[in-house]
C-alpha cells in the first residue's frame, strides 16, 4: 500500500471518529422515522426503498401523509423540494471547500449531506480543525458512518415498527441532538442573534405550508447574524475557505 493510501485511510477513520458522538441521536431519530413511515401507512418494502433512496427524514415525513392520501405527484415532489430548501443553503456553504474535487465527489458530498454531517463540517471549518489533506476522505468517513447508522436504525424501525414503544417520546432525542449541535456555536454574539431571529421567525411562520417557514427563518437568521457581525469591530479574520 502506498503512503498516500494509508493517509487516506487514516483520514477516513478520523472522519468516522469525528461523527461518533452524534450517532446516538441519529440512531434513535432514524428508528423513530422508520416507525413513523410504517405507522403513517407505507408498506414495508416501499418504506425501505424510500429510506435508502431519499435519505432525508424531514422530506420523507412531510411527504408521507400526502402519499397516503393520494395527492398529485407534483404536490408531493414540490413538498419534498421546499422542505429541503435548507440543503440549497448548505450546498452553497460547503461548495468552496469542495471546489477542487471531481463532479462525482461533489455529487456524493451532496447526496450524503445531512443536518448533522453539514454542521460538523462547518464547525470544523470554522475552528480550523478541518484536515488540510484528504478532506474528501475525511468527509467520506463522516458520511459513510452517519449513513450506515441512519439506514440500519431506520430499517430496524420499519421492520419492527410494532415493537418500538412510541409513547416514550423517543423522537425528542432527534431535537435534543440538534440542540447539542447548535449549543457550542452560541458563544459568539452574531450567532446568538441569528439563532434568536431564526427561532422567532420559525415560530411565527410555522403555519406556512410545506415548511416554507423553516426556509424563511433560516434566511432571516443568516441576515440578522451578518448584520450583528458587521456592527462590531472587525476581529482579526478567521480562516476563510480557500478559493
Amino acid at each position, binding site marked *: 500500500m502506498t503512503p498516500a493510501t494509508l493517509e487516506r485511510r487514516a483520514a477516513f477513520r478520523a472522519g468516522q471518529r469525528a461523527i461518533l458522538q452524534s450517532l446516538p441521536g441519529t440512531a434513535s431519530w432514524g428508528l423513530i422515522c422508520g416507525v413513523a413511515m410504517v405507522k403513517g401507512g407505507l408498506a414495508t418494502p416501499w418504506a425501505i426503498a424510500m429510506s435508502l*433512496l431519499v435519505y432525508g427524514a424531514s422530506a420523507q415525513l412531510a411527504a408521507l401523509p400526502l402519499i397516503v392520501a393520494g395527492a398529485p405527484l407534483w404536490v408531493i*415532489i414540490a413538498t*419534498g423540494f421546499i422542505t429541503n430548501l435548507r440543503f440549497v443553503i448548505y450546498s452553497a456553504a460547503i461548495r468552496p471547500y469542495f471546489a477542487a474535487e471531481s463532479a462525482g465527489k461533489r455529487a456524493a*458530498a*451532496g447526496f450524503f449531506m445531512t443536518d448533522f454531517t453539514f454542521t460538523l463540517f462547518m464547525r470544523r471549518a470554522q475552528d480550523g480543525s478541518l484536515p488540510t489533506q484528504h478532506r474528501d476522505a475525511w468527509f467520506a468517513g463522516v458520511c459513510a458512518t452517519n449513513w450506515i447508522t441512519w439506514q440500519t436504525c431506520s430499517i430496524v424501525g420499519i421492520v419492527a415498527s410494532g415493537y418500538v414503544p412510541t409513547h416514550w*417520546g423517543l423522537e425528542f432525542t432527534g*431535537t*435534543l441532538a440538534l440542540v447539542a449541535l447548535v449549543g457550542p456555536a452560541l458563544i459568539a454574539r452574531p450567532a446568538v442573534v441569528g439563532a434568536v431571529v431564526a427561532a422567532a421567525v420559525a415560530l411565527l411562520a410555522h403555519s406556512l405550508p410545506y415548511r416554507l417557514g423553516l426556509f424563511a427563518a433560516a434566511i432571516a*437568521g443568516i441576515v440578522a447574524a451578518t448584520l450583528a457581525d458587521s456592527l462590531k469591530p472587525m476581529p482579526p479574520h478567521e480562516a476563510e475557505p480557500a478559493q
Partner: protein
Amino acid sequence: MNEPVSGVALAVVIVGLAVSTFATRTSFLLAGRRFRLNHRIEVALRYAPVCTLAAIIAPAVLHSAAGYDFSPANPRLIGVLGAALWLCWSRNIVGCLACGMAAYTAARLALG
C-alpha cells in the same frame, strides 16, 4: 388507507422525492465553476448551521398539534433546558441526550 396507491405510482413518487432531495443537496456543489456566489454571501453562510438548526428546534419544542405552548410546564422546554445545562459544562452529545431525556421524561411523568 381507503384507496391503496398503486405500486407504479408509489415508485414514481419515491424516485421523484429522491431526485428533488438530491437536487437541493447538490445544487451549488454541482453548479458550474463560472457560476460564483458573492463573497459576502459565502461569508454569511457560515451562520447557516446555527440559524437552520434554531429554526428546526424552536417549533419542535414550542409548538405541537395543540398549538403554541410557551408555558414553563412544557415538558419539551424542560427537556431542552436540561440538555442546555449539560452543554454548559460538557460538549458530550450522549450526556446531553441522556440529561435532556431525563428532564423531559421526569417533567412528562410529573406534569402529565
